[in-house]
Protein backbone atom coordinates (compact mmCIF):
# COMPACT_ATOMS: atom_id res chain seq x y z
CA UNK A 1 0.00 0.00 0.00
CA UNK A 2 1.45 3.38 -0.92
CA UNK A 3 2.01 5.97 1.76
CA UNK A 4 -0.29 8.47 0.07
CA UNK A 5 -3.20 6.06 0.23
CA UNK A 6 -5.96 7.68 2.20
CA UNK A 7 -7.75 5.66 4.86
CA UNK A 8 -11.20 6.71 3.72
CA UNK A 9 -10.64 5.95 0.03
CA UNK A 10 -12.48 3.01 -1.49
CA UNK A 11 -11.01 0.62 -4.01
CA UNK A 12 -10.91 1.66 -7.66
CA UNK A 13 -13.91 -0.37 -8.98
CA UNK A 14 -16.13 0.96 -6.18
CA UNK A 15 -15.05 4.51 -6.92
CA UNK A 16 -15.72 4.12 -10.64
CA UNK A 17 -19.11 2.58 -9.96
CA UNK A 18 -20.14 5.41 -7.65
CA UNK A 19 -18.94 8.06 -10.07
CA UNK A 20 -20.77 6.37 -12.94
CA UNK A 21 -23.98 6.15 -10.92
CA UNK A 22 -23.79 9.81 -9.95
CA UNK A 23 -23.03 10.87 -13.53
CA UNK A 24 -25.90 8.76 -14.87
CA UNK A 25 -28.44 10.19 -12.45
CA UNK A 26 -27.24 13.75 -13.01
CA UNK A 27 -27.44 13.26 -16.76
CA UNK A 28 -30.85 11.61 -16.73
CA UNK A 29 -32.62 13.89 -14.30
CA UNK A 30 -30.89 17.23 -14.68
CA UNK A 31 -29.06 17.52 -17.96
CA UNK A 32 -31.38 15.58 -20.27
CA UNK A 33 -34.52 17.67 -19.53
CA UNK A 34 -32.57 20.86 -20.16
CA UNK A 35 -31.25 19.55 -23.46
CA UNK A 36 -34.73 18.29 -24.35
CA UNK A 37 -36.27 21.72 -23.80
CA UNK A 38 -33.87 23.37 -26.23
CA UNK A 39 -34.00 20.48 -28.72
CA UNK A 40 -37.78 20.46 -28.76
CA UNK A 41 -37.96 24.24 -29.10
CA UNK A 42 -35.63 24.22 -32.10
CA UNK A 43 -37.04 21.07 -33.74
CA UNK A 44 -39.02 22.96 -36.35
CA UNK A 45 -36.18 25.35 -36.99
CA UNK A 46 -35.02 28.79 -35.91
CA UNK A 47 -37.72 30.66 -37.81
CA UNK A 48 -40.56 29.14 -35.88
CA UNK A 49 -38.61 29.43 -32.65
CA UNK A 50 -38.10 33.16 -33.13
CA UNK A 51 -41.65 33.65 -34.35
CA UNK A 52 -43.01 32.02 -31.21
CA UNK A 53 -40.97 34.35 -29.07
CA UNK A 54 -42.06 37.41 -31.01
CA UNK A 55 -45.71 36.71 -30.48
CA UNK A 56 -47.53 39.38 -28.51
CA UNK A 57 -48.99 37.04 -25.93
CA UNK A 58 -45.60 35.56 -25.22
CA UNK A 59 -44.18 39.02 -24.69
CA UNK A 60 -46.96 40.09 -22.39
CA UNK A 61 -46.35 36.89 -20.37
CA UNK A 62 -42.67 37.71 -20.09
CA UNK A 63 -43.47 41.27 -19.00
CA UNK A 64 -45.99 40.07 -16.43
CA UNK A 65 -43.55 37.53 -15.04
CA UNK A 66 -40.81 40.13 -14.73
CA UNK A 67 -43.23 42.54 -13.10
CA UNK A 68 -44.47 39.94 -10.59
CA UNK A 69 -40.92 38.93 -9.72
CA UNK A 70 -39.76 42.55 -9.71
CA UNK A 71 -42.39 43.41 -7.11
CA UNK A 72 -42.36 40.30 -4.94
CA UNK A 73 -38.58 39.83 -4.68
CA UNK A 74 -37.89 43.28 -3.13
CA UNK A 75 -40.89 42.83 -0.81
CA UNK A 76 -39.63 39.45 0.34
CA UNK A 77 -36.08 40.74 0.72
CA UNK A 78 -37.46 43.32 3.11
CA UNK A 79 -39.73 40.82 4.92
CA UNK A 80 -36.99 38.19 5.06
CA UNK A 81 -34.46 40.63 6.50
CA UNK A 82 -36.89 41.88 9.13
CA UNK A 83 -38.00 38.38 10.08
CA UNK A 84 -34.42 37.09 10.34
CA UNK A 85 -33.36 40.14 12.34
CA UNK A 86 -36.30 39.68 14.69
CA UNK A 87 -35.86 35.98 15.42
CA UNK A 88 -32.06 36.01 15.68
CA UNK A 89 -31.35 39.23 17.57
CA UNK A 90 -34.20 39.01 20.08
CA UNK A 91 -35.65 36.41 22.41
CA UNK A 92 -39.39 36.68 22.97
CA UNK A 93 -42.49 34.63 23.63
CA UNK A 94 -43.82 33.00 20.46
CA UNK A 95 -40.44 33.03 18.74
CA UNK A 96 -40.52 29.30 18.00
CA UNK A 97 -44.04 29.67 16.61
CA UNK A 98 -42.90 32.48 14.34
CA UNK A 99 -40.02 30.32 13.12
CA UNK A 100 -42.36 27.53 12.04
CA UNK A 101 -44.79 30.07 10.57
CA UNK A 102 -42.01 31.29 8.27
CA UNK A 103 -41.82 27.75 6.87
CA UNK A 104 -45.56 27.52 6.26
CA UNK A 105 -45.39 28.45 2.56
CA UNK A 106 -42.96 25.54 2.04
CA UNK A 107 -45.30 23.18 3.80
CA UNK A 108 -48.63 23.94 2.11
CA UNK A 109 -49.46 23.01 -1.44
CA UNK A 110 -49.22 26.01 -3.80
CA UNK A 111 -52.79 25.35 -4.93
CA UNK A 112 -54.00 26.02 -1.41
CA UNK A 113 -51.74 29.06 -1.22
CA UNK A 114 -53.66 30.37 -4.24
CA UNK A 115 -57.12 29.35 -3.08
CA UNK A 116 -56.71 31.19 0.22
CA UNK A 117 -56.43 34.49 -1.64
CA UNK A 118 -59.42 33.71 -3.82
CA UNK A 119 -61.34 32.96 -0.63
CA UNK A 120 -60.31 36.31 0.83
CA UNK A 121 -60.34 38.63 -2.15
CA UNK A 122 -62.40 36.79 -4.81
CA UNK A 123 -65.84 38.02 -5.97
CA UNK A 124 -67.55 35.79 -3.41
CA UNK A 125 -64.75 36.03 -0.84
CA UNK A 126 -64.70 37.79 2.52
CA UNK A 127 -63.57 41.15 1.19
CA UNK A 128 -64.96 40.58 -2.33
CA UNK A 129 -68.08 42.81 -2.09
CA UNK A 130 -66.14 45.68 -0.48
CA UNK A 131 -63.42 45.44 -3.14
CA UNK A 132 -66.03 45.38 -5.92
CA UNK A 133 -67.72 48.47 -4.46
CA UNK A 134 -64.46 50.38 -4.54
CA UNK A 135 -63.57 49.01 -7.95
CA UNK A 136 -60.39 47.33 -6.78
CA UNK A 137 -59.32 44.18 -8.61
CA UNK A 138 -57.03 41.77 -6.84
CA UNK A 139 -57.97 38.31 -8.03
CA UNK A 140 -57.56 37.73 -11.78
CA UNK A 141 -55.21 40.74 -11.87
CA UNK A 142 -51.61 41.72 -11.14
CA UNK A 143 -52.09 42.36 -7.38
CA UNK A 144 -53.38 38.82 -6.87
CA UNK A 145 -50.44 37.35 -8.80
CA UNK A 146 -47.98 39.38 -6.74
CA UNK A 147 -49.65 38.44 -3.44
CA UNK A 148 -49.61 34.74 -4.34
CA UNK A 149 -45.97 34.93 -5.45
CA UNK A 150 -44.95 36.80 -2.28
CA UNK A 151 -46.64 34.15 -0.18
CA UNK A 152 -45.02 31.21 -1.94
CA UNK A 153 -41.51 32.70 -2.01
CA UNK A 154 -41.57 34.22 1.47
CA UNK A 155 -39.25 31.70 3.22
CA UNK A 156 -36.31 31.87 0.78
CA UNK A 157 -34.59 35.00 2.08
CA UNK A 158 -35.51 34.47 5.74
CA UNK A 159 -34.46 30.81 5.68
CA UNK A 160 -31.11 31.70 4.14
CA UNK A 161 -30.39 34.43 6.67
CA UNK A 162 -31.59 32.90 9.94
CA UNK A 163 -28.89 30.21 10.36
CA UNK A 164 -26.24 32.65 9.16
CA UNK A 165 -27.24 35.41 11.57
CA UNK A 166 -27.76 32.86 14.34
CA UNK A 167 -24.19 31.61 13.97
CA UNK A 168 -22.77 35.12 13.96
CA UNK A 169 -24.42 36.10 17.23
CA UNK A 170 -24.83 39.74 18.24
CA UNK A 171 -21.33 40.48 19.53
CA UNK A 172 -20.42 42.79 16.69
CA UNK A 173 -23.72 44.65 16.99
CA UNK A 174 -23.23 45.04 20.72
CA UNK A 175 -19.73 46.35 20.16
CA UNK A 176 -21.17 48.91 17.75
CA UNK A 177 -23.77 49.89 20.37
CA UNK A 178 -21.11 50.59 22.98
CA UNK A 179 -19.27 52.69 20.38
CA UNK A 180 -22.30 54.90 20.04
CA UNK A 181 -23.78 53.67 16.75
CA UNK A 182 -27.54 53.94 16.22
CA UNK A 183 -29.80 51.19 14.87
CA UNK A 184 -29.63 52.14 11.20
CA UNK A 185 -25.87 52.68 11.30
CA UNK A 186 -25.38 49.28 12.93
CA UNK A 187 -27.50 47.58 10.30
CA UNK A 188 -25.79 49.36 7.42
CA UNK A 189 -22.17 49.04 8.47
CA UNK A 190 -22.07 45.98 10.72
CA UNK A 191 -24.94 43.55 10.07
CA UNK A 192 -25.45 43.98 6.33
CA UNK A 193 -21.80 43.57 5.28
CA UNK A 194 -21.52 40.33 7.23
CA UNK A 195 -24.65 38.79 5.72
CA UNK A 196 -24.46 40.23 2.21
CA UNK A 197 -23.53 37.00 0.41
CA UNK A 198 -26.18 34.99 2.21
CA UNK A 199 -28.69 37.70 1.46
CA UNK A 200 -27.77 37.76 -2.22
CA UNK A 201 -28.06 34.00 -2.41
CA UNK A 202 -31.49 34.08 -0.77
CA UNK A 203 -32.63 36.81 -3.14
CA UNK A 204 -31.49 34.76 -6.15
CA UNK A 205 -33.34 31.66 -5.01
CA UNK A 206 -36.39 33.77 -4.25
CA UNK A 207 -36.22 35.30 -7.72
CA UNK A 208 -35.85 31.92 -9.43
CA UNK A 209 -38.91 30.63 -7.68
CA UNK A 210 -40.90 33.83 -8.21
CA UNK A 211 -40.39 33.59 -11.98
CA UNK A 212 -41.18 29.90 -12.13
CA UNK A 213 -44.13 29.74 -9.73
CA UNK A 214 -47.06 27.92 -11.28
CA UNK A 215 -49.55 26.49 -8.79
CA UNK A 216 -50.57 29.44 -6.63
CA UNK A 217 -50.41 31.91 -9.50
CA UNK A 218 -52.48 29.60 -11.69
CA UNK A 219 -55.33 29.74 -9.16
CA UNK A 220 -55.43 33.52 -8.79
CA UNK A 221 -54.60 34.59 -12.35
CA UNK A 222 -57.73 33.45 -14.18
CA UNK A 223 -55.65 32.65 -17.29
CA UNK A 224 -56.66 35.71 -19.26
CA UNK A 225 -54.46 35.48 -22.36
CA UNK A 226 -52.20 38.44 -22.91
CA UNK A 227 -53.32 39.90 -19.61
CA UNK A 228 -52.90 37.67 -16.56
CA UNK A 229 -50.86 34.81 -17.94
CA UNK A 230 -47.36 34.63 -16.55
CA UNK A 231 -44.71 32.78 -18.49
CA UNK A 232 -45.25 29.38 -16.81
CA UNK A 233 -49.02 29.70 -17.29
CA UNK A 234 -48.58 30.75 -20.90
CA UNK A 235 -46.40 27.70 -21.56
CA UNK A 236 -49.07 25.43 -20.14
CA UNK A 237 -51.77 27.04 -22.31
CA UNK A 238 -49.64 26.58 -25.43
CA UNK A 239 -48.88 23.01 -24.48
CA UNK A 240 -52.53 22.18 -23.91
CA UNK A 241 -53.26 23.59 -27.35
CA UNK A 242 -50.69 21.23 -28.88
CA UNK A 243 -48.42 24.13 -29.91
CA UNK A 244 -45.40 22.20 -28.74
CA UNK A 245 -42.72 24.20 -30.47
CA UNK A 246 -44.13 27.48 -29.19
CA UNK A 247 -44.48 26.02 -25.69
CA UNK A 248 -40.90 24.85 -25.69
CA UNK A 249 -39.69 28.11 -27.18
CA UNK A 250 -41.18 29.96 -24.24
CA UNK A 251 -39.82 27.30 -21.91
CA UNK A 252 -36.33 28.12 -23.15
CA UNK A 253 -36.76 31.65 -21.80
CA UNK A 254 -37.51 30.24 -18.35
CA UNK A 255 -34.67 27.77 -18.67
CA UNK A 256 -32.30 30.56 -19.63
CA UNK A 257 -33.43 32.62 -16.67
CA UNK A 258 -32.69 29.60 -14.47
CA UNK A 259 -29.24 29.20 -16.03
CA UNK A 260 -28.46 32.88 -15.52
CA UNK A 261 -29.57 32.57 -11.89
CA UNK A 262 -27.32 29.54 -11.43
CA UNK A 263 -24.45 31.39 -13.05
CA UNK A 264 -24.84 34.37 -10.74
CA UNK A 265 -25.21 32.01 -7.80
CA UNK A 266 -21.90 30.32 -8.61
CA UNK A 267 -20.28 33.70 -8.98
CA UNK A 268 -21.67 34.78 -5.60
CA UNK A 269 -20.37 31.61 -4.01
CA UNK A 270 -17.01 32.05 -5.64
CA UNK A 271 -16.73 35.66 -4.48
CA UNK A 272 -17.83 34.89 -0.94
CA UNK A 273 -15.34 32.03 -0.65
CA UNK A 274 -18.13 29.44 -1.11
CA UNK A 275 -17.30 27.14 1.81
CA UNK A 276 -18.19 29.78 4.38
CA UNK A 277 -21.85 29.16 3.65
CA UNK A 278 -21.39 25.48 3.04
CA UNK A 279 -24.83 24.63 1.70
CA UNK A 280 -26.35 22.99 -1.41
Amino acid at each position, binding site marked *: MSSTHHVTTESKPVRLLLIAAAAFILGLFLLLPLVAVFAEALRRGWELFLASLKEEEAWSAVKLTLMAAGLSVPLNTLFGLSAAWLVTKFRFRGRAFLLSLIDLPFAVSPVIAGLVWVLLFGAHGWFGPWLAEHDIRIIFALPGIVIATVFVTFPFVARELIPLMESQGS*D*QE*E*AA*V*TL*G*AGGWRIFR*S*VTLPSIKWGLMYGVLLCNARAMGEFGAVSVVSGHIRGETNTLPLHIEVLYNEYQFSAAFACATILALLALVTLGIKSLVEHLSGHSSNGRH
Partner: protein
Amino acid sequence: MSITIRSIHKTFGSYKALEDVSLDVPDGSLTALLGPSGSGKTTLLRIVAGLEFADDGPGKVLFHGEDVSGVPAGKRGVGFVFQHYALFKHMTVGENIGFGLTTLPRSNRPKKAEIGDRVRELLKLVKLEGLEKRRPHELSGGQRQRVALARALAIKPKVLLLDEPFGALDAQVRKDLRRWLRIFHDEIGLTTLFVTHDQEEALELADQVVVMRNARIEQVGSPQEIYDQPRSPFVYEFLGNVNKVALNEDSNQYIRPHEIEVCFAAEHDPASGRLAKIQHLFSAGPVATLTVRLDDGQFLDVELSRKQLDDLALDVGDEISLKLGSAAP
Protein backbone atom coordinates in the same frame (compact mmCIF):
# COMPACT_ATOMS: atom_id res chain seq x y z
CA MET B 1 -14.14 58.09 37.33
CA SER B 2 -15.54 55.90 40.13
CA ILE B 3 -18.28 53.33 39.57
CA THR B 4 -20.94 52.79 42.21
CA ILE B 5 -23.32 49.88 42.03
CA ARG B 6 -26.31 49.80 44.39
CA SER B 7 -28.74 46.92 45.07
CA ILE B 8 -28.79 45.48 41.59
CA HIS B 9 -31.14 42.57 40.92
CA LYS B 10 -31.30 40.75 37.62
CA THR B 11 -33.40 37.77 36.62
CA PHE B 12 -33.61 35.97 33.28
CA GLY B 13 -37.02 34.32 33.34
CA SER B 14 -36.90 32.31 36.55
CA TYR B 15 -33.10 32.32 36.72
CA LYS B 16 -31.55 34.71 39.22
CA ALA B 17 -28.37 36.14 37.74
CA LEU B 18 -27.77 38.84 40.34
CA GLU B 19 -29.24 39.28 43.81
CA ASP B 20 -28.87 42.55 45.66
CA VAL B 21 -25.39 43.38 44.43
CA SER B 22 -23.65 46.54 45.63
CA LEU B 23 -20.09 47.49 44.88
CA ASP B 24 -17.75 50.47 44.81
CA VAL B 25 -15.03 50.66 42.20
CA PRO B 26 -12.65 53.46 43.19
CA ASP B 27 -11.51 56.03 40.65
CA GLY B 28 -8.48 54.85 38.71
CA SER B 29 -8.49 51.34 40.15
CA LEU B 30 -8.10 48.05 38.35
CA THR B 31 -10.81 45.83 39.76
CA ALA B 32 -11.37 42.15 39.03
CA LEU B 33 -14.75 40.42 39.14
CA LEU B 34 -13.73 36.88 39.99
CA GLY B 35 -16.01 33.87 40.15
CA PRO B 36 -16.92 30.55 38.61
CA SER B 37 -19.15 30.49 35.52
CA GLY B 38 -22.74 31.28 36.37
CA SER B 39 -21.80 33.46 39.32
CA GLY B 40 -23.18 36.59 37.64
CA LYS B 41 -19.92 38.42 37.00
CA THR B 42 -20.43 38.94 33.26
CA THR B 43 -24.05 40.01 33.80
CA LEU B 44 -22.84 42.63 36.29
CA LEU B 45 -20.27 43.90 33.79
CA ARG B 46 -22.91 44.11 31.05
CA ILE B 47 -25.24 46.05 33.36
CA VAL B 48 -22.47 48.55 34.08
CA ALA B 49 -21.97 48.88 30.31
CA GLY B 50 -25.68 49.32 29.63
CA LEU B 51 -25.83 46.21 27.42
CA GLU B 52 -28.20 44.70 29.96
CA PHE B 53 -30.63 46.45 32.27
CA ALA B 54 -31.20 45.61 35.93
CA ASP B 55 -34.65 44.55 37.11
CA ASP B 56 -37.00 47.33 38.14
CA GLY B 57 -36.47 48.42 41.71
CA PRO B 58 -34.03 50.45 43.70
CA GLY B 59 -31.03 49.17 41.71
CA LYS B 60 -28.72 51.89 40.39
CA VAL B 61 -25.44 52.32 38.57
CA LEU B 62 -23.58 55.59 39.15
CA PHE B 63 -20.52 56.95 37.38
CA HIS B 64 -18.77 59.52 39.55
CA GLY B 65 -21.93 59.95 41.60
CA GLU B 66 -24.16 60.46 38.58
CA ASP B 67 -26.97 57.99 38.01
CA VAL B 68 -26.53 56.39 34.58
CA SER B 69 -29.06 53.55 35.03
CA GLY B 70 -31.34 54.94 32.33
CA VAL B 71 -28.60 56.05 29.95
CA PRO B 72 -28.26 53.85 26.83
CA ALA B 73 -24.95 52.05 26.31
CA GLY B 74 -23.86 54.29 23.45
CA LYS B 75 -24.15 57.42 25.59
CA ARG B 76 -22.54 56.08 28.78
CA GLY B 77 -19.00 56.57 27.60
CA VAL B 78 -17.82 53.06 28.40
CA GLY B 79 -15.11 51.21 26.56
CA PHE B 80 -16.11 47.56 26.35
CA VAL B 81 -13.79 44.76 25.24
CA PHE B 82 -15.65 41.58 24.44
CA GLN B 83 -14.45 38.11 25.31
CA HIS B 84 -13.98 37.16 21.68
CA TYR B 85 -13.13 40.77 20.78
CA ALA B 86 -16.13 41.20 18.43
CA LEU B 87 -14.00 43.02 15.87
CA PHE B 88 -15.85 44.07 12.73
CA LYS B 89 -14.64 41.32 10.42
CA HIS B 90 -15.12 43.12 7.12
CA MET B 91 -13.33 46.28 8.24
CA THR B 92 -9.61 46.93 8.45
CA VAL B 93 -7.89 47.41 11.78
CA GLY B 94 -7.90 51.16 11.20
CA GLU B 95 -11.61 51.23 10.36
CA ASN B 96 -12.35 49.16 13.45
CA ILE B 97 -10.51 51.54 15.73
CA GLY B 98 -11.96 54.63 14.06
CA PHE B 99 -15.54 53.31 14.14
CA GLY B 100 -16.50 54.97 17.42
CA LEU B 101 -15.36 58.34 16.09
CA THR B 102 -17.35 58.04 12.86
CA THR B 103 -20.58 57.45 14.83
CA LEU B 104 -20.36 60.81 16.58
CA PRO B 105 -22.98 63.38 15.59
CA ARG B 106 -21.85 65.43 12.60
CA SER B 107 -21.33 68.55 14.71
CA ASN B 108 -18.52 67.11 16.83
CA ARG B 109 -17.27 64.38 14.53
CA PRO B 110 -13.57 64.80 13.81
CA LYS B 111 -12.45 65.26 10.20
CA LYS B 112 -11.24 62.23 8.28
CA ALA B 113 -7.60 63.22 8.65
CA GLU B 114 -8.01 63.73 12.39
CA ILE B 115 -9.61 60.31 12.76
CA GLY B 116 -6.64 58.86 10.87
CA ASP B 117 -4.22 60.59 13.23
CA ARG B 118 -6.11 59.37 16.28
CA VAL B 119 -6.16 55.80 14.92
CA ARG B 120 -2.39 55.85 14.40
CA GLU B 121 -1.92 57.30 17.87
CA LEU B 122 -3.97 54.47 19.39
CA LEU B 123 -2.14 51.83 17.34
CA LYS B 124 1.09 53.17 18.76
CA LEU B 125 -0.35 53.07 22.26
CA VAL B 126 -1.22 49.36 21.94
CA LYS B 127 2.05 48.62 20.10
CA LEU B 128 0.54 47.72 16.75
CA GLU B 129 2.06 50.41 14.54
CA GLY B 130 1.74 49.75 10.85
CA LEU B 131 -1.07 47.18 11.06
CA GLU B 132 -3.71 49.74 10.12
CA LYS B 133 -4.60 48.14 6.78
CA ARG B 134 -4.76 44.55 8.02
CA ARG B 135 -8.02 42.70 8.50
CA PRO B 136 -8.89 41.06 11.83
CA HIS B 137 -8.47 37.53 10.45
CA GLU B 138 -4.84 38.30 9.58
CA LEU B 139 -3.96 39.02 13.21
CA SER B 140 -2.97 36.77 16.10
CA GLY B 141 -5.17 36.45 19.17
CA GLY B 142 -3.08 38.85 21.21
CA GLN B 143 -3.06 41.42 18.42
CA ARG B 144 -6.85 41.20 18.02
CA GLN B 145 -7.21 41.70 21.73
CA ARG B 146 -5.20 44.92 21.54
CA VAL B 147 -7.14 46.15 18.50
CA ALA B 148 -10.33 45.63 20.50
CA LEU B 149 -8.78 47.61 23.33
CA ALA B 150 -7.71 50.43 21.02
CA ARG B 151 -11.19 50.51 19.49
CA ALA B 152 -12.75 50.81 22.95
CA LEU B 153 -10.31 53.56 23.93
CA ALA B 154 -10.92 55.60 20.77
CA ILE B 155 -14.13 57.09 22.16
CA LYS B 156 -12.21 58.35 25.22
CA PRO B 157 -14.31 56.31 27.63
CA LYS B 158 -14.81 57.24 31.27
CA VAL B 159 -14.44 53.61 32.34
CA LEU B 160 -12.99 50.55 30.69
CA LEU B 161 -14.78 47.19 30.94
CA LEU B 162 -13.17 43.93 29.88
CA ASP B 163 -14.97 40.60 29.66
CA GLU B 164 -12.55 37.70 30.20
CA PRO B 165 -9.78 39.67 28.51
CA PHE B 166 -7.33 36.79 28.34
CA GLY B 167 -9.78 33.92 28.12
CA ALA B 168 -9.16 33.06 24.48
CA LEU B 169 -5.36 33.29 24.49
CA ASP B 170 -2.72 30.65 25.02
CA ALA B 171 -0.66 30.56 28.19
CA GLN B 172 2.46 32.46 27.14
CA VAL B 173 0.62 35.29 25.33
CA ARG B 174 -1.69 35.45 28.29
CA LYS B 175 1.11 36.09 30.69
CA ASP B 176 2.80 38.72 28.53
CA LEU B 177 -0.45 40.52 27.85
CA ARG B 178 -1.38 40.46 31.53
CA ARG B 179 1.84 42.22 32.47
CA TRP B 180 1.42 44.64 29.60
CA LEU B 181 -2.16 45.47 30.64
CA ARG B 182 -1.07 46.23 34.21
CA ILE B 183 1.60 48.66 33.04
CA PHE B 184 -0.80 50.09 30.46
CA HIS B 185 -3.43 50.67 33.14
CA ASP B 186 -0.94 52.44 35.38
CA GLU B 187 0.05 54.70 32.49
CA ILE B 188 -3.43 55.79 31.40
CA GLY B 189 -5.05 55.57 34.86
CA LEU B 190 -8.51 54.70 33.54
CA THR B 191 -10.95 53.10 35.99
CA THR B 192 -11.04 49.51 34.80
CA LEU B 193 -13.31 46.61 35.66
CA PHE B 194 -12.58 43.16 34.27
CA VAL B 195 -14.19 39.76 34.52
CA THR B 196 -12.20 36.59 35.01
CA HIS B 197 -12.59 33.07 36.33
CA ASP B 198 -8.84 32.70 36.82
CA GLN B 199 -7.89 33.45 40.43
CA GLU B 200 -4.21 33.77 39.61
CA GLU B 201 -5.00 36.42 37.02
CA ALA B 202 -7.22 38.36 39.41
CA LEU B 203 -4.73 38.25 42.28
CA GLU B 204 -1.77 39.17 40.13
CA LEU B 205 -3.36 41.96 38.13
CA ALA B 206 -5.98 43.74 40.21
CA ASP B 207 -5.89 46.39 42.95
CA GLN B 208 -9.25 45.18 44.17
CA VAL B 209 -10.72 41.70 43.80
CA VAL B 210 -14.46 41.03 43.97
CA VAL B 211 -15.24 37.36 44.51
CA MET B 212 -18.69 36.39 43.25
CA ARG B 213 -20.72 33.27 43.78
CA ASN B 214 -24.32 32.34 42.99
CA ALA B 215 -25.48 35.82 41.94
CA ARG B 216 -23.97 37.48 45.01
CA ILE B 217 -20.73 39.12 46.05
CA GLU B 218 -18.87 36.88 48.48
CA GLN B 219 -15.96 39.11 49.41
CA VAL B 220 -14.28 42.35 48.29
CA GLY B 221 -10.72 43.27 49.10
CA SER B 222 -7.16 43.71 47.96
CA PRO B 223 -5.54 40.56 46.53
CA GLN B 224 -3.61 40.14 49.75
CA GLU B 225 -6.69 40.43 51.96
CA ILE B 226 -8.55 37.95 49.82
CA TYR B 227 -5.69 35.49 49.89
CA ASP B 228 -4.73 35.86 53.53
CA GLN B 229 -8.15 36.30 55.08
CA PRO B 230 -10.71 34.45 52.99
CA ARG B 231 -14.08 35.12 54.58
CA SER B 232 -15.70 31.81 53.64
CA PRO B 233 -14.79 28.25 52.74
CA PHE B 234 -15.90 29.04 49.20
CA VAL B 235 -13.38 31.87 48.82
CA TYR B 236 -10.73 29.64 50.37
CA GLU B 237 -11.40 26.86 47.92
CA PHE B 238 -11.94 29.05 44.90
CA LEU B 239 -8.62 30.81 45.30
CA GLY B 240 -7.18 27.36 45.03
CA ASN B 241 -3.97 25.82 46.27
CA VAL B 242 -5.51 24.82 49.58
CA ASN B 243 -6.00 21.62 51.54
CA LYS B 244 -9.37 20.88 53.04
CA VAL B 245 -8.89 18.73 56.13
CA ALA B 246 -12.01 17.16 57.60
CA LEU B 247 -11.74 17.48 61.41
CA ASN B 248 -15.04 15.81 62.15
CA GLU B 249 -18.40 15.35 60.41
CA ASP B 250 -19.25 18.98 59.89
CA SER B 251 -16.14 21.02 60.37
CA ASN B 252 -13.21 21.44 58.05
CA GLN B 253 -9.88 23.07 58.37
CA TYR B 254 -8.35 24.92 55.43
CA ILE B 255 -4.61 25.11 55.18
CA ARG B 256 -2.36 26.11 52.31
CA PRO B 257 0.34 23.61 51.31
CA HIS B 258 3.20 25.95 52.23
CA GLU B 259 1.79 26.56 55.70
CA ILE B 260 2.26 22.94 56.75
CA GLU B 261 5.34 22.21 58.82
CA VAL B 262 7.17 18.94 58.18
CA CYS B 263 9.26 16.98 60.73
CA PHE B 264 10.62 13.44 61.08
CA ALA B 265 8.22 10.83 62.35
CA ALA B 266 10.65 10.28 65.24
CA GLU B 267 9.92 13.80 66.47
CA HIS B 268 6.16 13.25 66.30
CA ASP B 269 4.09 14.86 69.07
CA PRO B 270 0.48 13.56 69.06
CA ALA B 271 -0.76 16.77 70.70
CA SER B 272 0.28 19.09 67.87
CA GLY B 273 1.00 16.90 64.85
CA ARG B 274 -0.47 14.31 62.51
CA LEU B 275 1.34 11.29 61.16
CA ALA B 276 1.45 10.93 57.40
CA LYS B 277 3.07 8.85 54.68
CA ILE B 278 4.56 10.32 51.49
CA GLN B 279 2.69 9.01 48.44
CA HIS B 280 4.20 11.12 45.71
CA LEU B 281 6.99 13.61 45.40
CA PHE B 282 7.38 16.31 42.78
CA SER B 283 10.55 18.31 42.98
CA ALA B 284 11.21 20.00 39.63
CA GLY B 285 11.74 23.71 40.39
CA PRO B 286 12.53 25.67 43.53
CA VAL B 287 9.55 24.33 45.42
CA ALA B 288 8.90 20.64 46.10
CA THR B 289 5.38 19.31 46.40
CA LEU B 290 4.59 16.21 48.43
CA THR B 291 1.33 14.35 48.24
CA VAL B 292 0.90 12.71 51.64
CA ARG B 293 -1.67 10.41 53.15
CA LEU B 294 -2.80 11.15 56.71
CA ASP B 295 -3.33 8.36 59.25
CA ASP B 296 -7.11 8.61 58.63
CA GLY B 297 -6.74 8.20 54.87
CA GLN B 298 -7.12 11.87 53.75
CA PHE B 299 -4.72 13.19 51.14
CA LEU B 300 -2.92 16.53 51.48
CA ASP B 301 -0.53 18.59 49.40
CA VAL B 302 2.51 19.92 51.20
CA GLU B 303 4.98 22.42 49.79
CA LEU B 304 8.52 22.95 51.04
CA SER B 305 11.69 24.39 49.64
CA ARG B 306 14.12 22.17 47.78
CA LYS B 307 16.68 22.88 50.47
CA GLN B 308 14.34 21.70 53.20
CA LEU B 309 13.55 18.58 51.23
CA ASP B 310 17.25 17.82 50.81
CA ASP B 311 17.96 18.51 54.49
CA LEU B 312 15.23 16.11 55.57
CA ALA B 313 16.28 13.62 52.86
CA LEU B 314 12.69 12.54 52.31
CA ASP B 315 11.53 9.97 49.78
CA VAL B 316 8.32 8.28 48.67
CA GLY B 317 7.07 5.86 51.35
CA ASP B 318 8.67 7.73 54.29
CA GLU B 319 6.65 8.40 57.43
CA ILE B 320 6.60 12.06 58.52
CA SER B 321 4.89 14.22 61.09
CA LEU B 322 2.91 17.29 60.01
CA LYS B 323 1.99 20.38 61.99
CA LEU B 324 -1.27 21.76 60.60
CA GLY B 325 -1.47 24.76 62.94
CA SER B 326 -4.60 26.15 64.56
CA ALA B 327 -7.97 25.46 62.97
CA ALA B 328 -8.99 28.17 60.49
CA PRO B 329 -12.65 28.37 59.33
